[in-house]
């Protein structure tokens, strides 16, 4: 399978099953569609009016050479390979700890329902947190690198417990030959110098929630008194990002139908000096006024393209920044096993509620039918864990023939469930945006390699 696209005068051809990415001229860009359909002489006949014979022959020879090298028209060779991994017992290696089902902001679009996740306000106890660490150590079997994400609601509302859990994990990781990596996601309202120092000492990554321009941010992310939070958090976020030398963090925003010109928000964050930026599409029920619609896609595509071009310009001028969704390392990216398996929700990544209940991921929390067990007794619903493990790109009809399957790995199971009631049917708007982002990411890579 190949996929080709042209952006800003750059023609690209992807060989999906080998992972090879090619930048091609106009002749190859046209020929590649017909190369497998016609014998060489007929192919030349078809294009001889448009291109010189010598050019056509040369281009065809180059295509032939790449095909022989296994870099074009490669066949799928992963179905059997995947079965090796699917037969294994799932290993849990990451937990999202819902430290607080409560929040000091009332963000309009929050999938957590202002922190409560379809339930009641609650804070995780240190006891539950420590049990979660014990559970992860046991369920991770021989995996060494383990991840804990302190999430909410707003985890800084229960920060003493965060510290107790970190101290506990650190006190036993050597004994079990584990390496814990901690991440905290915060809206920043309670961030102060002391908390910043603790985060910098102990957290591998910190995710700072901010949507972009002040008016955009404040329209969605406001306090209980309906006052915007932008002015409260920006100075704190700048300070912590600088204190981490502008690495190992993300400012992370959400765009909605109310700011379809979201490229401006990304650039606003870059202009504030942030070097690690992620701004992502809202996932909201269709009936919400701010939910993205299919008719918005053309504008969103334009925005991603505009952003890609601007990112290239800034990088070339030495003023670059990283945009999470445009980051692709073509040489050292994830292995095909990971790409096939997806994000790992429900099998290797689970969410833990303040009460200690286990769910497939943070977005499933509160959906009772997805409760998988708890940190005290472990996973009780093993068939569900197996079902999530088996939810790979080959298990989804829509993904099987999609060129982007090794980049997105089948998309988000929670989005699929939310829109179709089935984790195997991907959320269409999400897919279309993902495909555009992958094209933009590859375009950026090609431009920077010029």
């Amino acid at each position, binding site marked *: 399978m190949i996929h080709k696209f042209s952006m800003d005068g750059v023609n690209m051809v992807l060989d999906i099953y080998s992972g090879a990415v090619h930048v091609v001229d106009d002749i190859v860009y046209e020929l590649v569609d017909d190369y497998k359909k016609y014998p060489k002489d007929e192919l030349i006949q078809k294009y001889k009016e448009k291109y010189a014979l010598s050019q056509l022959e040369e281009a065809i020879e180059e295509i032939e050479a790449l095909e022989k090298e296994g870099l074009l028209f490669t066949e799928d060779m992963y179905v059997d390979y995947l079965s090796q991994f699917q037969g294994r017992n799932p290993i849990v290696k990451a937990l999202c700890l819902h430290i607080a089902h409560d929040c000091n902001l009332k963000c309009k679009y929050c999938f957590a329902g202002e922190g409560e996740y379809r339930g009641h306000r609650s804070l995780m106890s240190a006891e539950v947190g420590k049990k979660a660490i014990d559970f992860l150590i046991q369920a991770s079997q021989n995996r060494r690198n383990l991840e804990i994400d302190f999430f909410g609601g707003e985890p800084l509302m229960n920060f003493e417990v965060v510290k107790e859990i970190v101290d506990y994990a650190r006190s036993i990781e050597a004994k079990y030959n584990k390496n814990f990596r901690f991440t905290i996601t915060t809206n920043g309202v309670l961030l102060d110098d002391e908390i910043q120092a603790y985060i910098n000492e102990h957290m591998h990554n910190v995710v700072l929630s901010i949507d972009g321009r002040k008016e955009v941010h404040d329209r969605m992310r406001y306090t209980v008194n309906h006052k915007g939070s932008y002015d409260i958090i920006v100075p704190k976020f700048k300070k912590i990002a600088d204190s981490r030398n502008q690495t190992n963090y993300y400012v992370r925003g959400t765009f909605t139908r109310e700011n379809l010109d979201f490229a401006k928000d990304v650039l606003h964050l870059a202009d504030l000096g942030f070097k690690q930026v992620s701004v992502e599409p809202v996932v909201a029920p269709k009936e919400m006024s701010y939910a993205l619609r299919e008719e918005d896609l053309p504008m969103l595509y334009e925005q991603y393209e505009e952003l890609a071009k601007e990112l290239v310009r800034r990088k070339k001028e030495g003023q670059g920044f990283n945009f999470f969704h445009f980051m692709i390392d073509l040489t050292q990216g994830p292995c095909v096993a990971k790409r096939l398996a997806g994000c790992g929700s429900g099998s290797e990544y689970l969410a833990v509620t303040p009460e200690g209940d286990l769910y497939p*991921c943070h977005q499933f929390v509160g959906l009772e039918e997805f409760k998988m067990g708890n940190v005290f007794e472990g996973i009780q619903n093993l068939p569900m864990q197996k079902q999530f493990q088996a939810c790979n790109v080959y298990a989804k009809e829509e993904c099987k023939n999609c060129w982007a399957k090794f980049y997105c790995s089948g998309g988000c199971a929670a989005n699929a469930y939310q829109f179709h009631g089935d984790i195997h049917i991907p959320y269409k708007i999400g897919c279309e945006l993902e495909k555009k982002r992958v094209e933009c990411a590859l375009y950026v890579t090609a431009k920077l390699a010029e």
Partner: protein
Amino acid sequence: MKHIKTLNTATLKKSMAKGGCGECQTSCQSACKTSCTVANQSCENN
């Protein structure tokens, strides 16, 4: 080559040899939390 510039090699195919160790970061832990992308993660076993 005059008409084609290849930006990488057959990385996916090669990764079959030593892939699947599972030590890499979980996708959602990095930043996304709502929109799954896997290709921008890095390998721990290079």
